[in-house]
């Protein structure tokens, strides 16, 4: 830690320059709500800390032609203050509302939440359920687009290369925003890390469960889509029997661990309950 240097690029060009001249491991920092505790605990000790918060072109929330785009530097508070997210992507709004406390949300960024790759990352299940894409940039302007369900590799591991940053997250505007629901179970109601979390997004009313998407948090090494359940939901009727059968299946599609917050067995049980509640709420247009 005594060797750590600090750089704050103001443009992608400056960032490229930093990559060219960097010696030794570097670490990005955005809001710092994960990085600073890690630095202090000594679990990371980069030679160079690259502060992305000067890349102002990465702080925006926009809707363009049916697509919602969120710059990686947008804070969780920015998301909660956004008319676009509140009205058109309430599934993400609900998740943001559950992340940390307002004090954390004022600095925590959406890019940092995904890049940190906690299995419990609160924005991930909703973004998975909306089929989000992660857009990245490497040195010299090399860009790629990664579906979020292929972005996470394990706890705190992502597909990102060492010189690759998230620039923005995009997803198609939900057809009926009211047909989605994010539920999080923690050990208390406020300021808590998930024991389990689940986001459901359904197609507009009148259709079947076809097109239903389910994102899960804290019940596998990474946030995950429940593809088997989605398939089973779609192949059955929109009735309690199908929902019940899918609630059974969901406990088989996950691989939770026992930890300080809950046992694996408990997580399986509560995910089935969260699933039933969330799907019921989504069917009813967002209200449980």
């Amino acid at each position, binding site marked *: *830690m*005594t*060797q*750590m*240097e*600090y750089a*704050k690029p103001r443009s992608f060009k400056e960032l490229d320059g930093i990559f060219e001249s960097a010696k030794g491991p570097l670490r990005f*920092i955005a809001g*710092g*709500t994960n990085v*600073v*505790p890690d*630095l*202090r605990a000594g679990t990371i000790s980069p030679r160079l*800390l690259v*502060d992305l*918060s000067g890349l102002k072109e990465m702080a925006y929330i926009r809707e363009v032609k049916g697509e919602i785009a969120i710059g990686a530097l947008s804070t969780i*508070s920015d998301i*909660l*203050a*956004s*008319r676009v*997210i*509140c*009205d058109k992507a*309430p599934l993400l*709004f*609900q998740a943001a*509302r559950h992340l*940390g*406390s*307002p*004090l*954390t949300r*004022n*600095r925590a960024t959406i890019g940092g939440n995904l890049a940190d790759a906690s299995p419990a990352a609160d924005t991930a299940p909703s973004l998975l359920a909306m089929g989000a894409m992660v857009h990245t940039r490497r040195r010299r302007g090399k860009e790629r687009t990664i579906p979020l369900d292929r972005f996470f590799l394990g706890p705190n591991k992502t597909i990102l290369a060492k010189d690759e940053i998230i620039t923005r997250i995009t997803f198609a505007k939900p057809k009926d925003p009211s047909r989605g629901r994010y539920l999080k179970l923690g050990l208390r109601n*406020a*300021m808590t890390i998930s024991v389990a979390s689940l986001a459901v997004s359904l197609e507009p009313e009148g259709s079947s469960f076809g097109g239903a998407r389910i994102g899960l948090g804290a019940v596998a090494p990474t946030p995950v889509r429940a593809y088997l359940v989605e398939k089973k939901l779609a192949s059955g009727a929109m009735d309690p029997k199908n929902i019940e059968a899918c609630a059974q299946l969901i406990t088989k599609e996950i691989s939770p661990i026992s930890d300080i917050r809950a046992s694996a067995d408990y997580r399986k049980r509560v995910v089935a309950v969260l699933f039933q509640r969330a799907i019921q709420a989504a069917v009813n247009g967002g209200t449980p």
Partner: protein
Amino acid sequence: MKKTEVCLTVNGVTHHLGLSPNALLLNVLRDELGLTGAKYGCGTGQCGLCTVLVNGRAVLSCLTLAVAVDGADIVTVEGLSRPDGSLDPIQEAFLDHGAIQCGYCTPAMVITAKDLLNRNAHPTEPEIREQIEGTLCRCTGYLSIVRAIKSCGDRAGAPAPRPSPMKKSR
């Protein structure tokens, strides 16, 4: 460690400081500038006692690198009172409602409330409770604190509620 030049405007006074990249905003405020209102509590963001305003928003100064807020406008509890020494309405409200016991959380509570009142002059009780959910008080049981913040909103003239995204109920 190599020092970085950092410019911070704290309670209206601009300071140019040479700081290590790992210097925490909290330590700079307390040790370099002698502003001991913001407290060290847990060091991990759980207790909220180090809260200060950075560009108008309440943030955890123990999880913020000072270099990362170069150029920012910072307000600590010491900066809330007016030049003539009279207190800010939120400070008056805390006194009026006995919202202080040991006082350790008070600077953070007042700053956290200020962040809300700046954006929303008439917060509802649920909005107040949500705002202070990351700021721990071990004495008051929170009721007097919630009342104090509420009274500030009630005093701020006729309510003119403006629908905003953050006003949506959970």
